[in-house]
């Protein structure tokens, strides 16, 4: 069965600091990888996704993530965070071979950015 782990439960940064949130998954086959963000009181929004091709993907709001197949990792990065990035971040995986596959979510990482 697929599983997703996220390294940090809660990350606290000052504005302008660099961010890296870890995500590892376990699944032997082809996967699609996603990062979703949940701002306080709001629903899950897609930040970025990886299906194939260039392992470095760029998303909205200056976020990027790198897929490292050998490490089963898909870490999220941002060079300079802002207070408005305060949110919960979820890594998610679904199997790549079949259509309509459900997501397996990681437990989430809460990011607090101090002004």
């Amino acid at each position, binding site marked *: 069965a697929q599983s997703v782990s996220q390294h940090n439960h809660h990350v606290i940064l000052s504005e302008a600091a660099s961010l890296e949130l870890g995500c590892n998954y376990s699944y032997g086959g082809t996967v699609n990888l996603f990062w979703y963000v949940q701002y306080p009181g709001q*629903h*899950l929004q897609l930040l970025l996704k990886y299906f194939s091709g260039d392992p470095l993907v760029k998303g909205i709001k200056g976020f990027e993530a790198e897929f490292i197949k050998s490490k089963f990792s898909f870490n999220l990065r941002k060079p300079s965070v802002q207070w408005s990035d305060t949110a919960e971040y*979820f890594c998610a995986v679904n199997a790549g071979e079949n259509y*309509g596959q459900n997501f397996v*979510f990681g437990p*989430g990482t809460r990011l607090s950015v101090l002004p």
Partner: protein
Amino acid sequence: EPEVTQTPSHQVTQMGQEVILRCVPISNHLYFYWYRQILGQKVEFLVSFYNNEISEKSEIFDDQFSVERPDGSNFTLKIRSTKLEDSAMYFCASSPTSSGVFRGTQYFGPGTRLLVL
């Protein structure tokens, strides 16, 4: 930009009562999902629905749960006899055809917070 919508945003019910959570997926999407998130825990998959039938369900989705697409737009989750442990945020999601750049991407609604007393 089209969005997934859910109603109600909050629901409080007594244990043993039936609840129906409603979702309107994005109109040209073909795959529909329900997830739940118990407070402080991760988002968990409940069920997926395609071509008017359940395509996959998790262990959580037992006989107390059912889903329906009663018309061309709504997608509902029914809990027949609620338990205290059903208290959670329930998210609906939809996904377009699985080819091309949107393959596998799911778009989430704002959620319904269910509290069972």
